[in-house]
């Protein structure tokens, strides 16, 4: 049960993010919602590679013994998560920049008032 906690937490984060996206009307809060979903997915991804009792997958830091016998945590999901975090940083920064630009032009962050592009 306790081993499934990361997956439950990931799902909770994704659902919270979707909830934020659907109920909030402020551009910055929409960005927060997207970041929540992103973090949920990242959490799922990184917890996939966990090996019970495993050590960090660093070759030179491994404890004594032949490297084959030591259970190491899978490095691939960590690399994937890192990549997706980096991508998340870039997209979040772009979103925030656009939000700032919209605020500059319109003086508001309320999506109900920003409706120049309709139909």
């Amino acid at each position, binding site marked *: 049960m306790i081993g499934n906690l990361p997956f439950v937490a990931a799902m909770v984060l994704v659902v919270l993010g979707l909830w934020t996206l659907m109920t909030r009307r402020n551009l910055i809060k929409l960005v927060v919602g997207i970041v929540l979903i992103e973090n949920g997915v990242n959490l799922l991804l990184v917890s996939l590679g966990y090996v019970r009792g495993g050590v960090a997958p660093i070759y030179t830091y491994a404890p004594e013994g032949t490297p084959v016998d030591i259970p190491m945590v899978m490095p*691939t999901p960590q690399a994937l998560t890192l990549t997706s975090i980096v991508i998340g940083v870039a997209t979040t920064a*772009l979103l925030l920049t*656009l939000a700032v630009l*919209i605020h500059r032009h*319109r003086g508001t962050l309320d999506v109900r008032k920003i409706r120049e*592009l309709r139909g």
Partner: protein
Amino acid sequence: MSFAMHVPILAIAAPLLGAFSLPLMAKVHHRLRDLWAIIVGAFTVAMIVTLAVQVFGGGIQVYTLGAEAPDATLGPEGFPIRITLVADAMGAFMALISALLGGAALVYALGFAQDGKGKTLSMSLLLLLWAGMLGLKLTGDLFNFFVFLEITTVAACGLIAYRVWESRPPEAAFKTLVMFILGGLMVLLAVALLYGEYGALNMAYLSNQIGGGLIDRMALGLLVGGLLMKAGAVPMHMWAPDAYGEADANTAIVLVANTQAGLYGLLRMLFTLYGGAATPEVGWLITSLGALTVLVTVLMAVVQHRLGRLVAYGAVSQIGYMLLAAGVALVTVGARPEFGQLALQGSVFHMINDAACIGLLFLCVGAVHRATGTGDLRSLGGLAHTERWTSGFFLLGALALAGIPPLNGFASKLMIYQSVFMLSPILAALAVLASILLLAVFVRAFQGAFLGPRQNVVSKPPSPAMLIGMGVLAAVVIAFGLFPDVMVRHVVAPAAEALWTGRDAYMAAVLGG
């Protein structure tokens, strides 16, 4: 070791390197930047054409990054461990589309974009988007697919929004970016699920393993949802008209290519990754979404009074036709009757035809903007007196888009109508009806903008670079319309075949055996 083996990666790496070094060149001199853009663009197009010749002549090309040899895809234990690029006929075909639109957009941008108004930025992002699309189309690794998807997301939204001094582009870009990120995250979630189940990311290996269990179906749903968002199908289409309508002309046509890359991803996932596990229900879903897309967007196009948005709705409606035909192919993929294959060929052929004629229309809209400073149909009129080339190209594109013989849109739409009719006559009738409505919309737009009395506006003629960009696309529209059978036999049929029955060849090329 020969140069020819490295063609797949060179096609991706050249525009990537070009995109990053372009701003440095611009710091030296703007002429050097333009020259560099031309060199990079020409090299990329040459690489793509070489790749296409290799693939259509000699079968699937596999390239393993960072390995001892390009074809060493498998690790010591017979398990694919590195990122591979797999160029099959469909991937090469999509790369050709991106070469057509990317090349035309780059040439057009040389004459269209203005120094001091983000020309360096837009050209650099254009190359980056090009590299992202090529990567998306050629990669054989699921996570790499996601990474390239996000590269196209960031580059596309940057391209839409770079005119920050205007109020509408940032808004359109925000909308687009939210949809693209959500789509990307759905794809990432699907990748995570598949990785958790099978412990691999190689598409050929996964395709070998996927059996259609609960997790597989969840992942399929997420993939379809995410990629449909990227492709701009109804009901996730809200971003598309805004993005196309607000972007520059040269940006809009690469965005069309980007949308098609999303569609390609969808087809690749459904036919290659889930080839054995996809059920007719998914096909019906895609078919009905396609029909809905065609109808809704054509009806929306009727009420538009801004030229850019009107063409944008036309562009989204064409995605609907491709989805419709692809859905028909999916419904029938299990039984494999003749018309399913015809539907897939129609869908694939329509991609390149749509790329050419919608691209031509967007470039004409850009030329109209440049000539008059506005895109509002209520204040335009009589442009045909001064803008002869632009009006001719616009008419050509509009007729081709509506499917008037002997232009290229007719050839592929006929294939789509025929195959859809075999599945459901009602859907085929709807598709024809939508096409007629689209013709009416474009005739009205042409009449409003180009015909009528001469207006006293100072008009700025299109520059030679813009004319070259438009001319290339117009030549494609006419050539594919006159000789569709040559195109279908030599290029489209192998590409559709790669999806239809090419799954085993795809797996064998990567996994050996």
